């Protein structure tokens, strides 16, 4: 080639110069565990379904959600949303309204008639589920999806367990419950109502089942001895609430005293108000801080006119009404009697002191370990008896719908493996996606969307739903508040901010790749990744 004056070399591209050799540390893409996912008792992949919801792809979002939990519409109403308590966004302004988006998706699915994907090919195995509460139903759902034939035997006249016979309508409308239960039955799950299992070994043998999952809940109300005359009726909350599902309205009178400090006590008092009580008073031994009921529920009850007497016990129920004794907390925080008495007028006392499990169906099963009235299970949810699994309120754990659903899922996975002669090993957990790894600058300012509440008058006189739903626009807004902690959401920052153009963009859904031939290891990408999905690791040099 004829070169111009003074030019001796052909022009070349700087790509010949592999600046990657300068590097002392390299960026790598990571996937970390977002705190919401880590906190969900049902093990939902929240961030993943929010990702679809953010784009308005609600059906895709719902499909990701129901891989772990078949009850989004129910969850969106009754779950105590520990996910929100853990959400990293709470350190910026307020947590993402995960629960309200979940409800929106669940309601949307009902409205649009979305069905589950087709189950896996039949395994030829049969599983008995005892109890059609959230735990049994969730297990049945997952087992059916995994290809097993499931029969649920339920003692009561309708499915739902405490979701129907405990949680009042003003928090969970029954058409919602029915719709989500029906969708599970559509998978071919057989539900046999009014069919109490008296002897589990016999039931498995007679039915020819290959395994069983027990989820009978905790339905026996704990009593406290209260000397009583005939002027005041003494009832228990579980029976009263259960009775509401029938035709009759329980006779509570005008002045109702509820004894206990849990969520059941709160629901009982709020129910009494709605049934026409002029006074609904909760009596609790300890202070408000020590109350096991959730703060927001206490708050809602107070708004509705429920009264609460903390640091008090009921000594007796006589013709004059009931006698309360004032308590004080000792140094260890235990309530101690003071001897100071007071009598108040009351027509009825409803006990809400917790429930025990009816374990009679297990009487003939040898070798079970029963501790404090509940059945011990291993990390695979199996009891000491091979092939007999259990979950929900009847095993040691927190008693919530979501925990029960999580047990059902976990048990189903282990039952599936057990039936196939394998063991189920969950994928190892990723490292935590901490707030400190985020670069919060990049997220737009956006306060949480508040769900509408029913007006007070109707909350005091009807069983209409108290908490309203988000609409499409507010749900979308709320979904987009998610920070995508710890997992790339394809914001292109790394692709853009690299001064050496050493990040290769692979296209929608395909993420990115580092070009280590040119990456000098400056670390700007890791610093400017909003969600902490890039780590710098030292090169061995």
């Amino acid at each position: 080639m004829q070169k111009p004056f003074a030019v001796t070399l052909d022009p070349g591209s700087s790509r010949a110069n592999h600046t990657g050799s300068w590097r002392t540390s390299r960026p790598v893409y990571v996937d970390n565990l977002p705190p919401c996912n880590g906190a969900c008792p049902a093990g939902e992949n929240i961030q993943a379904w929010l990702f679809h919801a953010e784009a308005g792809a609600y059906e895709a979002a719902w499909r990701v959600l129901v891989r772990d939990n078949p009850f989004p519409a129910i969850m969106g109403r009754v779950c105590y949303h520990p996910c929100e308590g853990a959400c990293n966004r709470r350190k910026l302004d307020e947590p993402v309204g995960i629960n309200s988006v979940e409800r929106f998706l669940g309601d949307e699915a009902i409205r649009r008639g979305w069905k589950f994907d087709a189950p896996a090919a039949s395994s030829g195995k049969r599983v008995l589920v005892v109890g059609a509460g959230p735990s049994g139903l969730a297990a049945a759902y997952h087992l059916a999806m995994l290809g097993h034939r499931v029969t649920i035997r339920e003692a009561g006249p309708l499915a739902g367990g405490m979701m129907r016979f405990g949680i009042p309508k003003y928090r969970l409308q029954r058409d919602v419950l029915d719709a989500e239960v029906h969708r599970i039955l559509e998978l071919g799950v057989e539900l046999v109502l009014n069919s109490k299992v008296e002897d589990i070994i016999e039931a498995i043998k007679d039915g020819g089942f290959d395994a069983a999952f027990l989820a009978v809940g905790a339905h026996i109300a704990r009593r406290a001895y209260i000397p009583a005359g005939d002027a005041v009726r003494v009832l228990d909350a579980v029976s009263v609430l259960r009775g509401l599902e029938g035709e009759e309205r329980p006779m509570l009178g005008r002045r109702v005293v509820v004894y206990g400090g849990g969520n059941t006590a709160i629901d009982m008092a709020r129910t009494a108000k709605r049934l026409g009580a002029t006074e609904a008073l909760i009596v609790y031994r300890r202070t408000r801080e020590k109350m096991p009921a959730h703060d927001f529920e206490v708050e809602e009850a107070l708004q509705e006119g429920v009264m609460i007497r903390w640091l008090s016990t009921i000594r007796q129920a006589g013709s004059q009404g009931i006698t309360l004794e004032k308590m004080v907390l000792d140094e260890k925080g235990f309530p101690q009697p003071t001897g100071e008495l007071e009598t108040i007028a009351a027509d009825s006392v409803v006990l809400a002191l917790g429930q025990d499990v009816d374990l009679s169906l297990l009487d003939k099963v040898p070798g079970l370990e029963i501790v404090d009235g509940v059945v011990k299970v291993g990390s695979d949810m199996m009891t000491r008896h091979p092939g007999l699994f259990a979950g929900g309120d009847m095993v040691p754990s927190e008693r919530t719908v979501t925990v029960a659903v999580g047990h059902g899922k976990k048990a189903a996975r282990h039952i599936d493996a057990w039936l196939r002669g394998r063991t189920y090993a969950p994928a190892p957990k990723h490292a935590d996606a901490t707030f400190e790894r985020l670069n919060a600058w990049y997220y737009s300012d956006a306060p949480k969307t508040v769900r509408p509440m029913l007006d007070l008058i109707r909350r005091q006189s009807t069983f209409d739903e108290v908490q309203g739903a988000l609409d499409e626009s507010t749900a979308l807004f709320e979904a987009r508040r998610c920070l995508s902690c710890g997992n790339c959401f394809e914001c292109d920052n790394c692709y853009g901010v690299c001064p050496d153009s050493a990040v290769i963009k692979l296209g929608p859904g395909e993420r990115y790749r580092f070009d280590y031939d040119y990456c000098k290891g400056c670390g700007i990408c890791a610093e400017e990744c909003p969600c902490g999905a890039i780590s710098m690791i030292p090169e061995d040099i």
Partner: protein
Amino acid sequence: MHQPIKFYQTGTHTIGNRLLKPEQRTVQSDRGRSNSLNCGHRACQGCGEALGARYAIDAAMDATRRQLIAANATGCLEVFSTPYPESSWQIPWLHSLFGNAAAVATGMAAAMKVKNRSDVRVIAQGGDGGTTDIGLGGLSGMFERNDDVLYICYDNEAYMNTGVQRSSATPPAARTATTAAVGDEPGNVFGQGKDMPAIAMAHGIPYVATATVADLHDLEDKVAKAIAIRGAKYIHIFVPCPLGWGAAAHDTIRLARLAKETGIFPVFEAERGEVTGVLRIRRKTPVEEYLKPQRRFAHLFAPTPRPDVIARIQAIADRNIRRYGLLDEGAR
């Protein structure tokens, strides 16, 4: 409490955002961006100038449908991109001298006019030294004649290529090779230096703007706007230099962001000498947070802390905030 439905998670803060409409997305987020300044250049790790140049020239390439030529002043940008016989530039690009980029570009624009190539647009670019010091005469002439050139200054606040000497864009109190951190008033003096965007505005040219590498959407918008205008345009881009400032390579964008958020570097645009828009401060930040990560300001913190000097720097930032209305509601 009606929520604005126009909420897009990261809005326009990030380089890309799958939730935005395609026309709202940046040139940089596009897989097909021209990558005008290619890989393999020899800029330091984390170089803000290399980044700023790719941002600006890619945006100009997009705005001109890739009919773009550039003249480049001597400086890091020229040296690290073109070690003979290699080049990182994927555009027609010409280097002549340290002080004459504006004049060379004027010639290029004239040539295009003669050749009837109104589609081809011309950029001149250089460092702060090449712009505010040695090249100012030629640049002023280019403004005065209203030549159809977009001049871009990459301001890293000193002569980096030759070893970090002071320029007339070096900030007060900064230590450079020629402004030692000794004596009562350590580092660069207060009260000198040139406010180059204001000088450009004083020429009454059609368009003047400032930008930083921390706000890509803003930077790209300004380049596109400048390209759409015929006549002389000036864009002054703030580009942190890890080497010259004694900062961590990974802090380049963070420092640019802090310069804007403290008010140290006002981001605005002006048409025919009048300010027409400013980028609002989003999280007002004291100047210490900007100064501390940079070794060129280390003498303000140790061994003898100099709150008095820091207060004078804060006063400069506060004046910018007042002067440009950087906290005003109306600002973007």
